[in-house]
């Protein structure tokens, strides 16, 4: 007898439909799985055999052939366990085959027949809904994640025997209600807040501008000046996540297997801070079966690279394309995958190797060449992608002691949200969503300057020794500053502030 069960596979962060065809025929007892399964799929035989027996059914001692169609795409992972087991039980007549026609099954089996969580449930659920299926059966732990997708019934399954009872109509399993509602405010509760940071007003302002326009930012300052502390507070002022954005982030985390069990959506913008010993592959993604790297895990959030010049040269250079394009394309023998990585890069660097160059209280032990060489490690093309550069001075004691309350993140976030809304409206037809992503023609269109402003910019270029590469960056940042103010046109105050954020162009450190 033949049965057909629907399930999903993963290609990058997108799912595709797989149909599990099971044929039980006469002949010597055998169990074959075809359709380019990896080791985990081949090993499923033993799990399925034990799970069926331990759930109180008989494993048919006949010739069983399972085909995972389309048979020319590689299948990996353990989520095919449940559909294959269900296929065998349906083909051997334990429950009617037509019960399976409009539903999708996912899940790993343990030997006693209970289900274990798998990864990539969210993108698979989305695919199932898009393909018109009305029900998806998932392990209990993954159900919340799947329930985020509206328009498809998600039924959590405790074990194989419960599924059989459900299909026989003996004990109907109940679908999980979509648990996700508007979340604004809640998720910022336990985050580090800018109110904890004393002083450093101009760095906070620069971070606000960076958050508002999605600009990459570099902080230069001595150890102990609070660079890391400031960067960690960046997510607290990033604009609220929309449902689509949350979905996109969750997809990546789901594929990477990093979604905490029993969680629905990622509701916080990610903050990724890899150590500087990270390899190029773990930064942009890769591996035999390519997994998303740190840039993708920071999608729509913050990628924080502390001690930027200490990162390997290769690791920094591979960042160039993803930062520019907003996606990484990885090709491996097992296929090519595209992962999105629209992230805000926040980097921190010491001004020199020992860190105390320019520090007023401690003496720098580096020679002048060493000082020059240190920031010289950052290549021009990489710095090209960093719109805002600020210095972070060491705080003096009176700043630390001051009782004056600093501005809390929620107030800053409100301003950022407002500026982002302006940008969203401006770019609604263009496929981008923030000022940092503007292309040159867009800069010409949206960053028009009056006479006074262009005179100022021209004069600044000649008197401050700015380089041509800063021109567009200054305009983009000025646009964001104008948006923060709600101003229609860029004025000279906006331009001036943007120019002040180009310290590396001005050779102040060389």
């Amino acid at each position, binding site marked *: 007898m033949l049965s057909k069960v629907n399930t999903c596979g993963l290609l990058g962060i997108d799912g595709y439909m797989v149909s599990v065809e099971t044929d039980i025929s006469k002949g010597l007892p055998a169990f074959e799985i075809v359709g380019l399964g990896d080791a985990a799929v081949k090993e499923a035989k033993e799990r399925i055999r034990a799970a069926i027996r331990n759930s109180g059914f008989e494993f048919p001692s006949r010739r069983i052939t399972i085909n995972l169609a389309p048979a020319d795409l590689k299948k990996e992972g353990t989520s095919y366990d449940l559909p294959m087991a269900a296929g065998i039980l349906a083909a051997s007549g334990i429950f009617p085959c037509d019960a399976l026609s409009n539903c999708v099954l996912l899940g790993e089996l343990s030997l006693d027949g209970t289900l274990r969580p798998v990864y990539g449930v969210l993108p698979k659920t989305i695919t199932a809904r898009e393909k018109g299926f009305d029900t998806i059966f998932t392990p209990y732990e993954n159900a919340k994640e799947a329930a985020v997708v509206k328009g498809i019934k998600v039924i959590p399954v405790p074990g194989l025997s419960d599924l059989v009872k459900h299909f026989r109509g003996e004990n109907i399993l109940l679908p999980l209600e979509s648990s996700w509602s508007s979340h604004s405010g809640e998720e910022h509760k336990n985050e580090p807040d800018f109110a904890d940071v004393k002083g450093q007003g*101009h760095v906070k302002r620069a971070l606000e501008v960076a958050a508002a326009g999605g600009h990459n930012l570099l902080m230069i300052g001595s150890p102990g000046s609070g660079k890391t502390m400031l960067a960690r507070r960046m997510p607290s002022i990033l604009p609220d996540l929309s449902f689509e954005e949350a979905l996109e982030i969750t997809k990546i985390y789901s594929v990477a297997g990093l979604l905490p069990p029993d969680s629905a959506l990622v509701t916080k913008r990610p903050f990724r801070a890899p150590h500087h010993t990270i390899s190029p592959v773990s930064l942009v993604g890769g591996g035999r079966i390519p997994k998303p790297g740190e840039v993708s895990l920071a999608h729509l959030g913050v990628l924080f690279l502390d001690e930027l010049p200490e990162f390997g040269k290769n690791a920094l250079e591979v960042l160039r394309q993803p930062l520019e394009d907003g996606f990484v394309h990885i090709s491996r023998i097992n296929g090519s995958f595209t992962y999105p990585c629209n992230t805000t890069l926040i980097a921190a660097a010491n001004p020199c190797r020992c860190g105390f160059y320019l520090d007023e209280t401690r003496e*720098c032990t580096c020679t002048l060449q060493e000082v020059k060489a240190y920031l010289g490690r950052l290549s021009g093309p990489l710095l090209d992608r960093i719109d805002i550069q600020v210095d972070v*001075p060491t705080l003096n004691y009176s700043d630390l002691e001051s009782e004056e309350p600093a501005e809390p993140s929620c107030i800053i976030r409100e301003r950022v949200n407002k500026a982002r809304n302006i940008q969203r409206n401006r770019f609604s037809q263009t496929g981008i969503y923030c000022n940092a992503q503007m292309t040159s023609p867009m800069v010409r269109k949206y960053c028009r300057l009056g006479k006074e402003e262009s005179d100022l910019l021209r*004069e600044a270029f000649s008197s401050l020794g700015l380089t041509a590469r800063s021109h567009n960056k200054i305009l983009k940042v000025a646009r964001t500053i104008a948006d923060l*103010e709600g101003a229609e046109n860029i004025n000279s105050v906006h*331009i001036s*502030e943007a*120019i002040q954020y180009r310290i590396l162009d001005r050779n102040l450190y060389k």
Partner: protein
Amino acid sequence: MNPGLKEWIWFANLKGITTRKKVELLRIFNDPAEIYRADAIELARTGILNRDNITSILSSEYRDTVDGTIEEIYKNHMDVVTLTSSNYPELLKNICDPPVCLYVKGKLRADELSVAVVGSRRASGYGITVAKKISGELALCNICIVSGMARGIDTAAHMGALSVKGRTIAVLGCGLDRVYPPENKKMMEQIIEYGAVISEYPPGAEPAPHHFPVRNRIVSGMSVGVLVVEAGERSGSLITAQLALEQGRDVYALPGNVISVNSKGTNKLIQDGAKLVTSVQDILDELHWYECFGMKSVLDFESERKSKLNIDTDEKSVIELLSLESLHIDEIQKKLSISMPLLHSILLSLEMKGLIKREPGGRYSIQI
């Protein structure tokens, strides 16, 4: 080619004999050629040479290498100025150990009014600014700026003089075929054009650490006075100041912040009696009897230029604040309580007007 040049160079390059002894020998023999030809008895009779000295004079080791040195001199387009040359600086002749030969690129003059400007290699923005300003103004008064072309203050001093196309002389601690420090290559070419780069070391000599204190005596010896702009507690500039005193030169020092490491040495000099200098006029006052050299009194271009700029009230308050001390942008904001975006634009506008300067690290200070 100067007929006695070979012997001069040979004599100057003899190792193991102090410059002081060499000068005494020249007094006895008149010409290095005679020393070249003298035998051991004649040399011993002078009573100032020990056995090792005589051996080194007679040895062929130094005699054989002279031709090679001369070749290098021609190849690198250098001049050699000897103690008896007409363009050997008069002032330098009067110290107790004047260099026997000077290798020169550019033009050296015998009677020139020079002031040495020296200081720390790791100078602060304050030191660099003042060194540039005072050197430039001295150069405008036809005073030649002598320094050592080292990093920091030395470089600023040369740049100051070059910025007004004034004369400046760099005294190196290595052969003139070297550029040390290498980043000053371009500046060295400019110095050769507008003044001279000199050294007592033959071409090929390394910038060895012990060369520099010896070189410092030439810096001070050529000058009527030495201005120490910034110096740490154990700085080479203090050696120069000490040498200047021994040579009977004036020592001027720029006062600094008492907390700053860079000003410890200069403040100490002032305590010990060096002339405290706050503007170029303080140096000119000391030099008034040299007016025959064609020294001009300084013209006040700066204040004229500044009075023409229009400055609004906000800008004025920032300038007033910064004229007390250099401040970080956060500190300015706290003191004036102006909004950050506006403050950014005020600072940029002042910077473009040339009234304030942004230092690395985000500090702002008054541009003088």
